[in-house]
């Protein structure tokens, strides 16, 4: 098991180097984008990034306006729960920050493929012959 990396003092401008970056999972597959960040307050009053929020549930409120409302409405339509939170990826699952964000987990264990699953179940599965398609 890798030892925890020590503090580097590296500084990151969130909008420039995190937001809208591609997430890549441990298998090299795309796993959504960084649409917002969750900040948690510590006992000393400082805030740290504790999670990446991804998908329309995070993007809609960030965009605001009519477009943001439309994106948020799409998210609510696709989500099985009535009171749904956006897909949340704990920041401890991040392996590296670069031109893309590398994760240490497979996207199968992340809640980021909701749209893909909805299209698969509601659209693709209803096309005649779709059941014969190879995996």
């Amino acid at each position, binding site marked *: 098991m*890798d030892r*925890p*990396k*020590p*503090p*580097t*003092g*590296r*500084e*990151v*401008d*969130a*909008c*420039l180097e*995190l*937001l809208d970056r591609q997430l890549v999972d441990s298998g090299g597959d795309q796993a959504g984008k960084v649409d*917002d*960040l*969750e*900040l*948690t*307050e*510590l006992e000393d009053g*400082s*805030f*740290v*990034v*504790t999670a990446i*929020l991804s998908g329309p549930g*995070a993007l809609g*409120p*960030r965009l*605001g306006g009519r477009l943001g409302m439309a994106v948020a409405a799409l998210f609510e339509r696709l989500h099985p729960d009535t009171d749904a939170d956006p897909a949340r990826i*704990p*920041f*401890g*699952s*991040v*392996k590296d920050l670069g031109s893309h964000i590398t994760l*240490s987990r497979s996207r199968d264990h992340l809640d980021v493929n909701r749209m893909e699953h909805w299209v698969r179940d509601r659209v693709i599965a209803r096309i005649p012959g779709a059941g014969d398609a190879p995996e």
Partner: protein
Amino acid sequence: MRLSDLLGAEVVDVDGVHLGKVRDARLVQDGPIQGTFGAGLRLAGLIVGPMALGSRLGFRRTHVTAPALVVQPVRLLDARTRYVPWDAVVEVRDRVVRIDRAAAELEPPRPPFDPTVAP
């Protein structure tokens, strides 16, 4: 709190002067250990101003050499951009960030430190 709660929020100094909006948030990797990432990203401060073109285009990074024809206009447009340390923030409410110091005490944002890039 979400980052989007801060981005675009109006910043008001101790004298009630509006400094512009939050254009970016600077994070520093010295927080508690978080899994495979190591030391977590702590919110260190806010980049505030009417515009923040230089930050948004990445020209504030030390290893980026911008063309002179681009960097001069960007500097002019970013002349009023300021860095607000997070410990200066008194309150964040209703899309307004109130700080405990005057605009004159704030400095322009310096390039973010990157230990992997030689100075």
